[in-house]
């Protein structure tokens, strides 16, 4: 029995290793994401906001004071002639620009890029207050001191440390939905299951071999990501490895069952792809893989806490980034566990060989 499972497992791996393209992308994608975003946001506070500064005909002391102050508040200033600035604006590349107008200035914001424009306008105004105080010789306004710490307080971490658990979760989701769900729909569609069904091989052995192979893929992916994170950014697991394994195992069970369950609802690969994307994209975008949902509406934050990926990621980050124990995350684990169980039951009910 074990021998049969092992043979299926080995064959699945052989076939997987031959599909160089798929293999490259499963392993390279998370690594590229981690390295790319990790390096872009290495500074910790994210990239500097850019403001276009439209140069006046003649630069006065007031302009010099504003430029100096904008630099001090960490704005990236791009001085351009009025013609250049207008060209950039009309191409839609500018989020915010400062133009001299009358005795003062005007800030023009791109309505499509308010996410950058809004905070930039705030910083420009802050710089302007600073510059005015200096010009008037009044005492400089004092700023509130800022300190950057990770929530668990173990170690000041960077964006890459936030992203890494997010990518681990995303991997599990995509393996579950695509490597498990999609593959099974296409096996059923093409009659691969039927060919197996006329042999004495118990079908659960085939499925178990397949699931075990996907498990080892996700394990290998996790190891690759952890090693890259450690070498490139010095990110290390801050919590107990046992807790990490518990969370990852629960997550794997959850998302693989999820894929199996979904595969029972589609007759063809095309239908399945549509259904799977319906789940994949919202889960990816709303669950805090790349950024937190702090500024999203309250109802949305409350809702995603009941979807599987978001509580999985919070728990994973608590353990991995902040060294927290699992005790404080019972609710999150419960939600993930409930999804795992529910999906498993649906999968068993809906799964078809023909």
């Amino acid at each position, binding site marked *: 029995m074990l021998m049969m499972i092992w043979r299926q497992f080995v064959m699945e791996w052989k*076939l997987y290793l031959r599909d160089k393209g798929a293999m490259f992308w499963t392993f390279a994608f998370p690594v590229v994401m981690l390295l790319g975003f990790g390096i872009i946001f290495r500074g910790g506070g994210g990239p500097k906001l850019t403001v276009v500064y439209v140069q006046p005909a003649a630069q006065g002391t007031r302009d010099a004071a504003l430029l100096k102050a904008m630099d001090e508040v960490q704005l990236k200033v791009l001085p351009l002639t009025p013609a250049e600035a207008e060209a950039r604006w009309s191409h839609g590349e500018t989020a915010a620009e400062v133009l001299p107008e009358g005795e003062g200035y005007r800030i023009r914001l791109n309505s499509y890029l308010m996410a950058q424009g809004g905070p930039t306008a705030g910083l420009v105004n802050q710089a302007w207050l600073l510059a005015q105080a200096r010009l008037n010789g009044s005492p400089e306004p004092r700023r509130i001191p800022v300190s950057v710490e990770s929530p668990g307080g173990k170690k000041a971490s960077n964006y890459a440390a936030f992203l890494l658990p997010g990518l681990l979760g995303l991997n599990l989701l995509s393996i579950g939905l695509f490597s498990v769900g999609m593959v099974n729909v296409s096996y059923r569609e093409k*009659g691969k299951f*039927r060919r197996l069904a*006329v042999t*004495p091989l118990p079908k659960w052995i085939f499925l178990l071999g397949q699931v075990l192979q996907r498990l080892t893929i996700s394990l290998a992916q996790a190891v690759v990501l952890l090693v890259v994170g450690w070498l490139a950014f010095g990110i290390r697991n801050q919590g107990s490895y046992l807790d990490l394994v518990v969370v990852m195992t629960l997550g794997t069970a959850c998302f693989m069952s999820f894929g199996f369950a979904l595969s029972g609802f589609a007759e063809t690969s095309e239908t399945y792809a549509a259904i799977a994307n319906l789940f994949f994209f919202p889960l990816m975008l709303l669950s805090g893989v790349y950024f937190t949902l702090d500024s999203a509406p309250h109802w949305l934050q409350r809702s995603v806490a009941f979807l599987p990926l978001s509580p999985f990621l919070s728990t994973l980050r608590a353990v991995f980034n902040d060294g927290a124990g699992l005790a404080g995350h019972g609710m999150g684990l419960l939600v993930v566990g409930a999804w795992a169980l529910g999906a498993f039951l649906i999968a068993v009910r809906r799964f078809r060989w*023909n």
Partner: protein
Amino acid sequence: MSESALRIHGLRKAFPKVVAVAGVDLEVARGEVFGLLGPNGAGKTTTLEMIEGLTVPDAGEIEVLGRTWAREGKEIRARIGVQLQSTSLFNKITVREALDLYGTYYPKARTTADLLELVQLNDKADAYHVTLSGGQQQRLALALALVNDPELVFLDEPTTGLDPQARRSLWDVVRRMKAEGRTVLLTTHYMEEAEALCDRLAIMDHGQVIAAGTPASLIAQLAIPSVVELTFNGDAPDPAAFAARLGEPVERRADLWEVPTRDPKALLPRLLETAEAAGVPYQQVHVRRATLEDVFLHQTGRSLRD
């Protein structure tokens, strides 16, 4: 070993929109090559899939090698070989690996070398499945059906889509199976294939067996053992007026007329005379023996490929 290889009785299967199999009885003796002949949609594949344990019948009894699916399914699977209408394997599995792997599913297995030799895939042994031609894939499917040295082999339209040469080489493999003492049940919609391979056959239409027996006996049962054909250049004209004048039934089929007859020697001069008199623009005249195609036509009023 006097028992039948296969015995089915009162087999029925209805799908939501169609009754696929409407009461089929069959008995296949050991060592026999038995054919299910019929047009697409006649219920051949559904019948076969019920026998193979892939589809659960609505009613009827199936006894495979003296065993029933309900109680001895695992044993049946170990002793039968199945080639499905289309065999889908992993794209990047090699021929050798597929044979090795499927061999491990069975308590006893023939060696891969043996099977490669049998279906002449030696030089393709290490090629990926996806790179094989249609005929080679079909031969691999055949080898997979033989991997467990089965007593009873099911072949569902084994030669559909193959070129004539590939078809002949598949026929050779089937004949070798018979020589090795295996029982073979195959479906086909090629009458010449049924005539060439089968010891006995059943003609199916609309989910029922409409005639059964040896190819020779089926043809002999037809009261009209010969057919005179008049061929035309292009589509044949309407034969109604000519048939009335001749006083014999005339069938129009694409570019020819067919006149079935008991006595071609007597018919022929009269037919040519009438054709001449009526100014029928025929090109050639052939006299041929009736075939299974004619049996089907006679039983159903339709051609096999319609």
